C-alpha cells in the first residue's frame, strides 16, 4: 500500500479510537466536574459494559443485531445501577473526600476485576457485530460497523451536550458543579444529583465499551488502558470541559492511531504518557481549559 492510503487507514482507525475514548472520558470528566472526585474504577465500568455485552448477546441468540441492541440498552443500565449502588453505599459515606474516594474506588476496581475474573473467566471473548457491511474505498475496503461507531458516538456526545445545556436536569447538574452549597440552599437535592451523575458517568463508559466490543474482544483486564487514556484526555482537554474533552479525544485517538501504525505501540504509549504528565505539571488547567478560580 502506498503512503496516503496507509495514512488514511491509520486516521480512520484513530477516529474509531477517538469516538470510544470521547464517550469514556466524558463520563470521567462529568464525575470529576460535578462531584470533584477522581473515579479510579472508571475503567472497570468500561470493562463491565463489554463483559455484560458478551453475556447478553450470548443469552439472546438469534440474529446478532438483536442481541447487540439488547446489550446496548441493558448493559449500560446494569452498570449504571452498580455505580449508583456503590456511590450510595461507599462514596456518600466518605463525604466525597478526594483522597478517601481515590482509595475507595481503587478498592472498587479490585472487587469488580475479581468478580469479572471469577464469573466471566480469564479468556478474551468476541461479540459478533450487529451487521457486516464493507464500504469499498478506492484503495481498500473498510468495515461499515466501525464507521457506524463514529456516528453513534457523535450522536451520543451531541445528546449529552443538549441535555447539559438545554434541559432542567442539565441546569441542576451545572448548578451543583458551579457551587454545591448555594445549589443546596436553592433546594437542589445535591445528594441525588451526585448519585445520578456517578451512574451517568459509568453508563457512558459502558456504552462506549458495548460499541467497541465487536472489534476488540471482552477481557477482564481491558479496563486499565481506557482509564489511563481517559485521564489523559480529561487532563489535556481541561477538567470538566465537554468541548475540550472531545477535542482532546480526537487529538489523542488519531495521533495514537497514526503513531501506532508507524512506530512501536509501547513507545507511542511511553511518549504520550510522558507528554501528558508534563502538561499536568506545567499547565494544570489543560491545553483548552482556563485557570480555575
Amino acid at each position, binding site marked *: 500500500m502506498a503512503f496516503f492510503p496507509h495514512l488514511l487507514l491509520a486516521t480512520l482507525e484513530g477516529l474509531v479510537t477517538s469516538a470510544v475514548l470521547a464517550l469514556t472520558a466524558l463520563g470521567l470528566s462529568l464525575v470529576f466536574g460535578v462531584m470533584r472526585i477522581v473515579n479510579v474504577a472508571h475503567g472497570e465500568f468500561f470493562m463491565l459494559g463489554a463483559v455484560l455485552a458478551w453475556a447478553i448477546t450470548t443469552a439472546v441468540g438469534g440474529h446478532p443485531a438483536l442481541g447487540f441492541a439488547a446489550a446496548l440498552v441493558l448493559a449500560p443500565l446494569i452498570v449504571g445501577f452498580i455505580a449508583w449502588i456503590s456511590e450510595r453505599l461507599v462514596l456518600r459515606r466518605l463525604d466525597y473526600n478526594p483522597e478517601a474516594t481515590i482509595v*475507595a474506588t481503587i*478498592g*472498587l476496581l479490585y472487587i469488580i*476485576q475479581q468478580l469479572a475474573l471469577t464469573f466471566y473467566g480469564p479468556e478474551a471473548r468476541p461479540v459478533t457485530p450487529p451487521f457486516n457491511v464493507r464500504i469499498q474505498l478506492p484503495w481498500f475496503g473498510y468495515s461499515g460497523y466501525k464507521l457506524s461507531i463514529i456516528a453513534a458516538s457523535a450522536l451520543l456526545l451531541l445528546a449529552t451536550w443538549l441535555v447539559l445545556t438545554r434541559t432542567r436536569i442539565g441546569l441542576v447538574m451545572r448548578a451543583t458543579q458551579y457551587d454545591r452549597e448555594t445549589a443546596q440552599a436553592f433546594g437542589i437535592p445535591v445528594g441525588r444529583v451526585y448519585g445520578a451523575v456517578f451512574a451517568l458517568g459509568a453508563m457512558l463508559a459502558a456504552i462506549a465499551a458495548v460499541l467497541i466490543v465487536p472489534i476488540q474482544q471482552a477481557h477482564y483486564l481491558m479496563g486499565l488502558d481506557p482509564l489511563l487514556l481517559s485521564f489523559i484526555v480529561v487532563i489535556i482537554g481541561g477538567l470538566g470541559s465537554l468541548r475540550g474533552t472531545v477535542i482532546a479525544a480526537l487529538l489523542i485517538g488519531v495521533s495514537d492511531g497514526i503513531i501506532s501504525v508507524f512506530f512501536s505501540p509501547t513507545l507511542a504509549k511511553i511518549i504520550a*504518557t510522558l507528554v501528558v504528565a508534563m502538561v*499536568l505539571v506545567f499547565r*494544570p488547567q489543560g491545553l483548552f481549559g482556563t485557570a480555575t478560580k
Partner: protein
Amino acid sequence: MSGDGATARVYALHAVVIALLVALNYILPEYHHGVLARVLVLAIFAMGYNLLFGYVGLLSLGHAMFFAAGLYGAGLPLYHLGWGVVPAFAGGVGAGFLVSLIVGLLALRTSGVAFMIVTMMFAQVFYLVTLYFGAWTRGDEGLVLQQQARQITLGTGTLDLTNPATRYLSAVALFAAALFATLAIVRSRHGRVLVAIRENEERAKMLGYDTFANKLAAVVTSGVICAAAGAAYALLFGYVGSTFASVQYSILPLLWVLLGGAATTLGPLLGTLFMYYVIDITSSYTSAYMLIVGAMLILLVLWFRKGVLGTLRDRWLGWLP
C-alpha cells in the same frame, strides 16, 4: 512527646521489636522464616511510602517506580556487568535517589489529585520502559540472579545471601536501619515541619518554612528507602521482573500503610505482615485475592481510617511515635 522518659520508652519499644525479629530467626519453622524475610523487605518499602503518605500527607500512586528503580538499579548491573553485591546495592539506592529527585522536582509542582495522577503516570512510563527494553530486562518474565553472583567476600569467608539465615538476618538489619532512620526523621525538626505541612501547608509557609524544599527532601528520602527495599529484594530473592513496576505495587504499600496505621513508625510492618498472611492463608481456599484487597481498602477507608496503630495511639497509647 514529652521528656526523656517518653523518649526512652519509644526507643525501648523499637529495640524490643528488633530483638524479637532477631530471635524469631532461631525459632521459626522454615516456611514462615522465608515468608518473614520477604515481609520485612516489603515492610521497608511500606515504611518509605508511609514517610510521604503518612507524615507529609502526599498520596502517591507511583511508588512502584522507586521500588523498581532499586530493583533494576541493583539487578541489571549485577546481571549484565558482573558487579558485586555491595556496588549493586549502592547502584540500586543511587538509581532510586535520581528517579525520586527528578519525579519530586516535577510532581511537586502539583498537589492533591493532580499529584496522584502525575505520579501514577510517571510510574506507568517507568513500567513501559522496563517492557520496552525487554532485550535487557526480559520484561514480565524477568531475570533470575544466580547464586554465585549473590555472595559477598569478606576477608577469608564469604557471606552467601542465598543462605536462609543470612538472608533473614540481612533483611532484619536493613529493616532496623530503615526503622531507626524513619524514627529519627519523624522526631527531628524536619519531621515536625513535614507534619505541619500535612496539617496546613499555607500556615507552614506563612511561618517561614520552605515547604517545597521540605517536601522534596521527603520525596527523595521516601524514594531512597523504597529503592533500598527494591535493591534488597533483588539481591536477597534473586528475581528482577517488571511486575514490581506495575501499578499494583504502587497500591499495595498504600494498603499496608492504611491497615497498620499511617504516620506510625511500626504500622507499615504490622500492615504488611497481616496482609501477606491474609492473602497467603486465603489463597489456599480461593484465588480471589483481589477481592480481599479491594474489600479491605473500602472497609479501611470507611470505618478504620487510622489503621491498627493509629487507633491504638488515639485510644490508649498517646506516646506511640
